[in-house]
C-alpha cells in the first residue's frame, strides 16, 4: 500500500486556479520530487497535504488517514519544513526544538536533532543569530522532532550556496536511508536528479509528466531531442566552483 495517496485534488483562490486536479502516490521510503517553475502549484499541493490549506475538491490519504485541516492524528506522523523558515527570534535553537517537542507531548534531547544537521555547536545560539543556510538546516531538524514517517521539504535549498546545498543533500539522503518517505519540491533539476526516486513535473496547477528521472530523460530522447553541447559533459561550472572552494560549510 502507498504511504501517500493523492486523488484529483483541486484548489482555487477566488478566480485563480492554483491546483487543478493532481493525483499521485508515493511508496514507503521513496523520495518523491515535485518539480516546476515558480507558481506551478507545488507549494499549494504540499500545503494541502500538510493540512495547512483546505482541499477544495478531491481527497488525499497519508498512511491511510484522510487529510484534513488541523488533523492531530496526521500532525503526529508528518514532519514539515515550509518555504518560509522563520521561528522565534529570541529563543535558542535548543529551546525551539524542546518547545515544538512539547507541542507533541514528547521530551527530546535537542542536541541529538541538531547533531543530525551539524548545528550542535549552535544549540545555545538564538535563532535570529544564525545564517540563512543554518536556518534551512534547522527547519529540517525541527521537522524531525515528532519522529515523523513522512517528511515534506518545500524548496529546502533555495537561496543556499553550493556548499550548503550539497550538505543539505547529504542530510536528505541520510533521512532516506533511515526509511523516511519524503516529498521534496524544488526547481533545481540537479537536485531532483540526485535525490528523487521519482519526480512529477508540474505547471499551471497540473502534473505534466511523472516517472523516474531516467525514464523522463529517456522519453525525451526518444522524441528525437538533441542537447546543444556547450561544455564538456564530464564536468560543469559548479564542479569547478566546488573544486576551487571546497566542500566545507561556510557558516
Amino acid at each position, binding site marked *: 500500500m502507498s504511504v501517500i495517496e493523492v486523488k484529483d485534488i483541486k484548489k482555487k483562490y477566488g478566480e485563480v486556479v492554483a491546483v487543478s486536479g493532481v493525483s499521485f502516490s508515493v511508496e514507503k521510503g521513496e523520495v518523491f520530487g515535485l518539480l516546476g517553475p515558480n507558481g506551478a502549484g507545488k507549494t499549494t499541493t504540499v500545503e494541502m497535504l*500538510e*493540512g*495547512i490549506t483546505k482541499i477544495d475538491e478531491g481527497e488525499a490519504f497519508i498512511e491511510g488517514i484522510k487529510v484534513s485541516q*488541523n488533523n*492531530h492524528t496526521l*500532525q*503526529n506522523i*508528518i514532519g*514539515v519544513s*515550509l*518555504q*518560509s523558515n*522563520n*521561528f*522565534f*527570534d*529570541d*529563543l535558542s535553537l535548543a*529551546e525551539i526544538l*524542546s*518547545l*515544538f517537542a*512539547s*507541542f*507533541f*507531548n514528547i521530551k527530546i534531547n535537542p542536541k541529538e536533532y541538531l547533531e543530525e544537521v551539524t548545528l550542535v555547536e549552535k544549540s545555545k545560539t*538564538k535563532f535570529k543569530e544564525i545564517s540563512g543556510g543554518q536556518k534551512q538546516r534547522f527547519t529540517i531538524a525541527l521537522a524531525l522532532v515528532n519522529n515523523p514517517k513522512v517528511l515534506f521539504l518545500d524548496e529546502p535549498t533555495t537561496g543556499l550556496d553550493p556548499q550548503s546545498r550539497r550538505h543539505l543533500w547529504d542530510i536528505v539522503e541520510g533521512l532516506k536511508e533511515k526509511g523516511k518517505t519524503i516529498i521534496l519540491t524544488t526547481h533545481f533539476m540537479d537536485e531532483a536528479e540526485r535525490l528523487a526516486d521519482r519526480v512529477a513535473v508540474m505547471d499551471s496547477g497540473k502534473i505534466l509528466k511523472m516517472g523516474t528521472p531516467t525514464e523522463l530523460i529517456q522519453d525525451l530522447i526518444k522524441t528525437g531531442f538533441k542537447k546543444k553541447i556547450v561544455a564538456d559533459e564530464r564536468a560543469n561550472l559548479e564542479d569547478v566552483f566546488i573544486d576551487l572552494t571546497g566542500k566545507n560549510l561556510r557558516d
Partner: protein
Amino acid sequence: MIKRIYSFTIASLKMTFRNRFALMMSFFFPIALILAFGFFNNSSAPKLNIDILGSKNTSTIQNNIVTELKKSGNVNIKKISTLSYGKNKIKNNSIDLLMYITPSASSFSRIFTKCNVGKACPQLVGIKSIPNYKISFYVNKFSTNLTYAELFISGFKYNALKSVVSVNHISLPFTYSQTFLTSGKEENSYIDFLIPGVLALALMQGIIFAVINIIVNYKELGVLRRLAVTPLTKSDFIASLTITRLIFGLIQIAILIVIAAVFLNVIPVGGVFGFANLTVVIILGALMFVTLALIISTISNKTATVFPIANLITLPMLFLSGIFFPVKNLPSWLRSIVNLLPLTYLANALRGIYDHGYSLLTIHNDLIGMAVWIIIFFLLNILFFKWE
C-alpha cells in the same frame, strides 16, 4: 492542552524578557509621562477659589481685601453672604478657602510725628483707636490646591503685617484663626489623579502593541503557518498569549507602582486589600485589551496597516479617558460617550482603589463595564479571528 499552553507561555515570557528594546519601551513611556506631568504640574501655581464674607461693619475692610487680592491675579475671589453657604461650598469641593471677617476689640495706636532734622524724634502726638478684625480661614483640606491655600494664608498674614509696619502702626489690625474643613469626597492632588491613569494607559499600550506585533509578525514571517501543522491549537496559542500578557502586565504595573511610591511618594491606599483589588482590576483590564488587540490584528495582515489602526483606536482613549484630566471637564455630550470607553472604566477602577481605597463592590460599575467589553471583544474574535 494544559501542557502545551504551559510550555508556550514559558517560551513567550522568555521571549518577552529577552526583547530588550520592547522591554525598555514598556517602562520608558509611562515613567516619562509620570515624571513629566508630575513635575510640570508642580511648577505652575493654580488659581485659588476663595469666598469671602464678613459680619456687620466689616464691609470696608472686606472691600479693601477683595481689591488687593484681585490685583494679585492669583485668586478667584467672590463675596458671599452666609457662613453656612460658604462651608457647604467647601463640602462640595467647589472652593479652596473661605475667609470670614468679624470685628474684634479695638486697639489703640499711638501716633508719632514724622522725623524732621533737629527735633527730638519721634514725638508722640496722640492716640488713635483702631478697629481690629479677626479673620477666620476655613481651608478645604481635600482640595487639590491645599498647599497653595496654606501658602496663601501665610502670605496674607505676612503682607498684612508689612503694610501695618510701614504706616507705623504698632498693634496689628488682624487676629487669625484657621480651621480645616473636609469635603464629602476626597479629591487628591494632580499626581494622585495622574498615576492610576498612567498605569491604565501603560497596561493598554503595552498589551495592544505587544499582541498585534506578535500576531502580525508571526503571520508575516509564516510562524503561525508552521504552528498550524503542530498540535498547538488556536485556543492554546491565544490562551498562552493572554497568560503571558497578563503576567507581564502585572509585573509592569507592580514596577510602576514602586517607582511612583519611591520617586513621587504616591502610595495606593487600602493596604493588602487594596493590592488584591488592584490585581483583580488589572487582570480584567488585561483580558479586555488582549481581546481588543486580537480583533485589531484581524483587520489586516500587514504591520504597516495594523499599527496605524491600533493608534487610531488607542489615541482617542489616551486623550479622553480621564488619564490626564478628569472626564468631568469634558462637554456633556462627549462625556457620555467617553464614560463607555474601555480605558475609562479601567482608569476609574484603578483610581477608585488607588486614591480612595474603594472596595470592588463600590467600583462594580467599572468592573461590569470591563466585563461587557471583554464579552463583546471575545464574541467578535470567535467570528473573525484567523490563523492567516
